[in-house]
């Protein structure tokens, strides 16, 4: 078996704000497999952002250990630049971080900081821009400030992808985008994963959104890891999810309601297509409508 890319062992982080000390993350043990796509889910204030900031060394654990790609983040004397080159991170509203005059220069910033050669930088930027659907010929020379919100966000994604990270962390990447821009963003993200083989960690408070992308979900509540598993098994436990302030996707909710109503819906139905196939193959349709 391949070694997981992220291993946390009894990870805790405490914020001390003068008057009171508060655990933002408490005793979290998780493993994220290399090449997979994991999603960390929880309501606002559940410690998601704090947790992922440990993965590229922006925060150090108060207690416990974090191993990212073999690097112990908590150890003193860790070279954070190496770690941050391997771990790309995209925060909420990443379009706010663009600052260069052209899209090309902005995407090239990370690779330049890695002291790569000119040709290498150019190839990487062109590939990254291509991956996010903003070809260089058309967009490279434009100012990032004249693009639309969704496009600017993809420029920011390209800026991270150009550093060729092994791990890509996205903190609520689609907040504030409309439905089209949202699905477009996920499409390009999936393409990046396919092309670069990067491990993705998504953070979201909405499971429906990440369900199609993630192989494994981690549910955080008040800083503790309360549930984990593949989406299928998690979504069949709608009651427990609601307990943590979350809702399973509408389809799963509907199916579980049907099950309660006495309909023998198999537990492994998960997508709309699967539901349709099952409905077609089964007789009870006429009875329903």
């Amino acid at each position, binding site marked *: 078996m391949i070694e997981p890319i992220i291993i946390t062992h009894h990870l805790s982080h405490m914020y001390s704000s003068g008057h009171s000390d508060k655990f933002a993350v408490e005793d979290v043990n998780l493993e994220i497999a290399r090449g997979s796509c994991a999603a960390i889910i929880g309501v606002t204030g559940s410690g998601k952002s704090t947790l992922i900031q440990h993965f590229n060394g922006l925060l150090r654990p108060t207690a416990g250990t974090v191993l990212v790609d073999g690097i112990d983040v908590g150890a003193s004397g860790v070279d954070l630049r190496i770690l*941050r080159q391997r771990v*790309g991170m995209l925060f909420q509203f990443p379009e706010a971080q663009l600052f260069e005059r052209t899209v090309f220069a902005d995407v090239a910033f990370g690779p330049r900081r890695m002291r790569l050669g000119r040709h290498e930088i150019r190839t990487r930027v062109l590939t990254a821009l291509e991956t996010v659907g903003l070809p260089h010929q058309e967009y490279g020379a434009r100012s990032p400030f004249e693009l639309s919100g969704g496009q600017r966000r993809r420029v920011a994604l390209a800026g991270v992808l150009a550093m060729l990270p092994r791990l890509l962390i996205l903190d609520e990447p689609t907040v504030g985008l409309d439905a089209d821009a949202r699905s477009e963003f996920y499409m390009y993200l999936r393409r990046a994963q396919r092309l670069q083989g990067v491990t993705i960690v998504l953070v979201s408070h909405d499971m429906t959104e990440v369900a199609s992308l993630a192989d494994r979900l981690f549910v955080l509540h008040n800083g503790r890891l309360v549930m984990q598993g593949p989406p299928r098994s998690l979504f069949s436990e709608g009651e427990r999810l609601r307990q943590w302030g979350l809702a399973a996707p509408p389809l799963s909710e509907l199916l579980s309601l049907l099950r309660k109503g006495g309909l023998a819906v198999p537990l492994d139905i998960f997508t709309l297509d699967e539901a349709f196939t099952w409905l077609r193959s089964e007789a009870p349709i006429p009875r329903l409508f």
Partner: protein
Amino acid sequence: MLFRNIPVGTYIPRDSLFHNLQARTKLLILVWLVPWLIVANHREWHFLPYIVLVALISFIIAFSAIPLREVWRRTWLIVLLFALTAIPLLSATDEDPKRLTALGPLVTTYGLARIVLLVGAALFAVVFLSSRLPVAALRTFWRRRGIRWLRIVSLLLVLAACVTLWLIGSNPGAQALSIGPYVITYGGVWTLLSGFLVLLALLIFSMLLTMTTSPVAMIEGLTMLLAPLRRLKLPVDDFALMSLLALRFIPTLLEEAEQLYKAQASRGADLTSGTIRERFQSLSMLFVPLVQGSLRRAADLAVALEARGYEVEGHQTPLHESTFATMDYVVMGGIFVVTVVSLLP
């Protein structure tokens, strides 16, 4: 966190007598203290106003529920500066050249002075070097908070001793060297005492003012005091609104700056590493988005204000009217009476 240690709002929320006073009251007291001290300073060796001043400040500290340690942390530098200026100031002769006392003259020989200087320089050099040695016990000792300044002081003393040695080095060892006499005059003592007390008192009082008054209350108080200037067509309300908005947005900006710093650090732009050119570039990538964000925010705010019917020409009224309580009158009246009485012969 990165920006948590910036002492922007030194306001310390407590529930104390001085906290509960109106901002206007505190501002008026501060404004009144200045002319009172100027008048008091005109009469030499009239100590009563200064005794009253010290008593007043002690009372205010006692009734403001601010720990003495906090006050000391913000004033020790001024006290140190005064201690340094005391050396030339005590022998000042322009006000009252009457001699209070004199130290010295100390007569010695150049040879002895040189030995003393050499031993002193060697001693301080050892102290300084010990801070640089890679010995674990010494390291932890030098990392203690109160100790760090000793390193700089010892280095300065070594330098001073070397310079003095170089200056007197050419004189023959047996020649007599007289140091002093150092004359302390009445005028010097008075200037030092009164000046020191006045500056320290005003510093502590204005510090307590900001420590016990929330910035918003302060602006409101200031606006109310400046209200008569409206007659002169001065834009008092605009000033109030602008200051309040600026105050309101400081935490937001800090938060945004922190977020940006993290985002850019993730892209390899760390302010604490890299060449000088790279660090400047990192600064620019922090400030360009920050300024851009602030401009956008300002535009949004202007729209929001107009949407709620804000008019530049209009007259604003506060949501919570703040009125003087009995305590405000008592404190103001008490301080006024005590200070005026202290001026009487």
